[in-house]
């Protein structure tokens, strides 16, 4: 992996941040990194679905091919020890541990029991450990739910809307859609006693779908929260339906229809994560999401072989994009905090390009999701490829909230 990083840097010497962000100078100026508080474990490197937009298997980075299928107990134990050291060193009172893949449920029930036990036993008892996972849910039967309930592992599920919308992209390798399997799992997850585990639904946007119908199809499963994720892309590989025309805002147009439907409901029907973060930022609060706002990103990925990586959605950019050259056997998490690529996500407005620095919605937008800023040759110091959409959506939400707040203040 160190070779990968060396190759990446020599191949891309002009790209920001690896080629030209000086962490030493940042340190000398008084900047301090924020410790990691979210640890995402790639517990299984394969998947039982073949979604056509998947950034793990279908995009630039193909590192999954060389990973072990399942994370070993040794890697889990070593990573847990490193997290415990990090918690102690930085006096953290809470950390989030996320099981991820591939498809994490493919690791099996016994793995989940051992994983949760190892992690919780390693981390100091005065630090709250929250365990969660994101799954396609096709293996989520009652016996697995019983394990998750006993181990207190919360569950988010991926679903793209109604049957047609979901099965257009989220299918098995033989082409059969996954909707029926997911629906069966969600019926169980959304009812007692398992509903206490249910965190919500993630839906990848397809502009072909009707937005309000998509929202209402997801609502049928009573999610506590949901989110709509634009498909990955960047300036060198445009997302579907997104052109370089700054006047075109197809994703904002799509999302605004859902926002207006959701926001105007007399009683809140569910949370929509991205919209709620924008509202909180408009009010003067801080974002909890890496895709919006300027809150330092404090997440690190542990691959199935123990290698440390940056956020895994960077796999959409180019081969080796998430690599750090570090691993849990040889390195502490503090070592990762010294990397330009990690620091770049923790320096607020100083990590934004000039266009973003001058933008009227800079502190709300925060430049958008980092992988969406990539351009071959210059790296990540660019606006998001979704910039026109973000600007229109944020203005729409900001203006609506301002208008309603004005009414409240007058009252």
């Amino acid at each position, binding site marked *: 992996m160190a070779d990968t990083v060396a190759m990446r840097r020599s191949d891309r010497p002009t790209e920001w941040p690896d080629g030209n962000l000086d962490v030493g100078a940042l340190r000398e100026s008084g900047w301090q990194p*924020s410790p990691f*508080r*979210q640890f*995402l474990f790639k517990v299984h490197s394969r*998947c039982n*679905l073949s*979604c056509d*937009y*998947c*950034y*793990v298997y*279908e995009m630039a980075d193909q590192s999954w091919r060389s990973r072990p299928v399942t994370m070993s107990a040794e890697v889990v134990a070593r990573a847990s020890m490193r997290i415990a050291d990090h918690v102690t060193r930085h006096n953290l009172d*809470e950390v*989030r541990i*996320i099981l*991820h*893949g*591939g498809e994490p449920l493919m690791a099996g029930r016994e793995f989940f029991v051992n994983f949760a036990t190892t992690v919780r036993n390693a981390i100091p008892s005065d630090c709250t450990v929250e365990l969660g*996972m*994101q799954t396609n849910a096709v293996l989520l039967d009652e016996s697995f739910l019983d394990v998750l309930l006993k181990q207190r592992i*919360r569950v*988010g599920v*991926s679903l793209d809307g109604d049957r047609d919308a979901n099965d257009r992209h989220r299918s098995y390798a033989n082409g059969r859609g996954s909707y029926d399997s997911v629906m069966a799992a969600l019926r169980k997850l959304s009812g007692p006693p398992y509903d206490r585990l249910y*965190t919500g639904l*993630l839906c*990848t946007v397809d502009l072909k779908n009707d937005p309000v119908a998509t929202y209402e199809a997801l609502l049928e499963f009573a999610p506590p*929260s949901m*989110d709509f*994720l634009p498909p*990955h892309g960047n300036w060198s590989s445009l997302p579907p339906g997104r052109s370089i025309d700054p006047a075109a805002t197809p994703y904002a147009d799509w999302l605004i229809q859902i926002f207006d439907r*959701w*926001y105007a*409901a*007399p*009683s*809140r029907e569910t*949370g929509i*994560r991205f919209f*709620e973060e924008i*509202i*909180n930022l408009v*009010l*003067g*609060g*801080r974002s*909890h*999401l*890496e*895709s919006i706002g300027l*809150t330092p990103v404090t*997440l690190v990925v542990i691959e199935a072989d123990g290698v440390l990586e940056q*956020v*895994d959605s960077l796999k959409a950019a180019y081969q080796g994009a998430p690599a750090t050259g570090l691993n849990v056997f040889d390195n502490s998490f503090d070592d990762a905090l010294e990397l330009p690529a990690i620091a770049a996500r923790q320096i607020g407005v100083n990590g934004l390009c000039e266009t973003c620095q001058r933008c009227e919605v800079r502190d709300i937008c925060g430049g958008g*999701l980092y992988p969406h800023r990539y351009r071959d040759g210059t790296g990540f110091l660019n606006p998001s490829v979704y910039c026109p959409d973000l600007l229109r959506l944020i203005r729409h939400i900001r203006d609506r*909230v*301002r208008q309603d*707040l*004005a009414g*409240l*203040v007058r009252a």
Partner: protein
Amino acid sequence: MPDVTQISLDEVRSLDDSVLAHSLRRFERESSEARDPISAFGAFNQHGSSPW
């Protein structure tokens, strides 16, 4: 921009069940916390076989 601090806590608590009311309660709650935010719904981000 209307100043959200002009709305009293009692007013915020007495608001209806709308999205804006929920947002104001969250803002008020988090404003009293010194800690850095951690994602309320998993780490973050994205989809494919492996969203979040």
